[in-house]
């Protein structure tokens, strides 16, 4: 299952579907970084609203995506982590340290627009 990546000005938006396999996540990780390079994007929003399970592999992949994108000089914002998913993540001891998060896509865009308003 491919994750659609949308270009929105200087930002990229990747929307996760519910049932992503490990292979899909790995694929996305490469795809996103390549697109950030291609479009010289300033930031990436990863929308995980549809994800019903965030296990250790998915969290680690998200952290790696954010880290790779930061090395490129761009920022990542994870949006839409569902309350139940957040609860399960905490129980599992999973963290997204150093990765920006926002309530939903709208908030994520608002955060980035504020952050980059001088240059945009």
């Amino acid at each position, binding site marked *: 299952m491919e994750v659609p990546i949308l270009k929105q000005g200087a930002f990229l938006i990747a929307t996760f579907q519910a049932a992503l*396999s490990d292979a899909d996540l790995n694929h996305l990780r490469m795809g996103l970084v390549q697109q950030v390079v291609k479009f010289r994007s300033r930031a990436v929003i990863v929308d995980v609203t549809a994800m019903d*399970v965030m296990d*250790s592999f998915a969290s*680690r992949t998200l952290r790696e995506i954010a880290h790779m994108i930061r090395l490129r000089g761009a920022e990542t914002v994870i949006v839409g982590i569902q309350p139940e998913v957040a609860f399960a993540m905490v129980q*599992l001891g999973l963290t997204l340290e150093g990765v920006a998060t926002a309530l939903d896509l709208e908030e994520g865009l608002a955060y980035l627009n504020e952050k980059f308003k001088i240059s945009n």
Partner: protein
Amino acid sequence: MSVGETRVEINSDQDIVIARQKGRVLASELGFSSGDATLIATAISELARNIVSYAHKGEIKVKGIQNSTRVGILVVASDDGPGIADIRQALRDGFSTSGSLGLGLPGVRRLMDEFEITSQLGRGTIVAVKKWRQ
């Protein structure tokens, strides 16, 4: 007194997704809240991933259970893989989840109400976990 039962063979990362989806459906049918169903699905995901990562193949069985007062769900993850040399270490926090190594077993134990593991080197591992409906 089983309410429902489902079994998923685990051979690849795709099967992890199938196992946790089926587990969630069964949990919902058993009357678990969607929050608890998420915890159960997450635990299944971790257990199935251990099978893929360490044993390459195995199976996940999920079934409804009942004692005198409560309804619950039983998840059994079994494989014929290499087994775990030091179970106590595998169950220790910090030896797990967030790093690249580790089995995530302490996390699974926190997600569920009951946790049992048997493992024999060279023979395989069976992890059985239960969660009771609130």
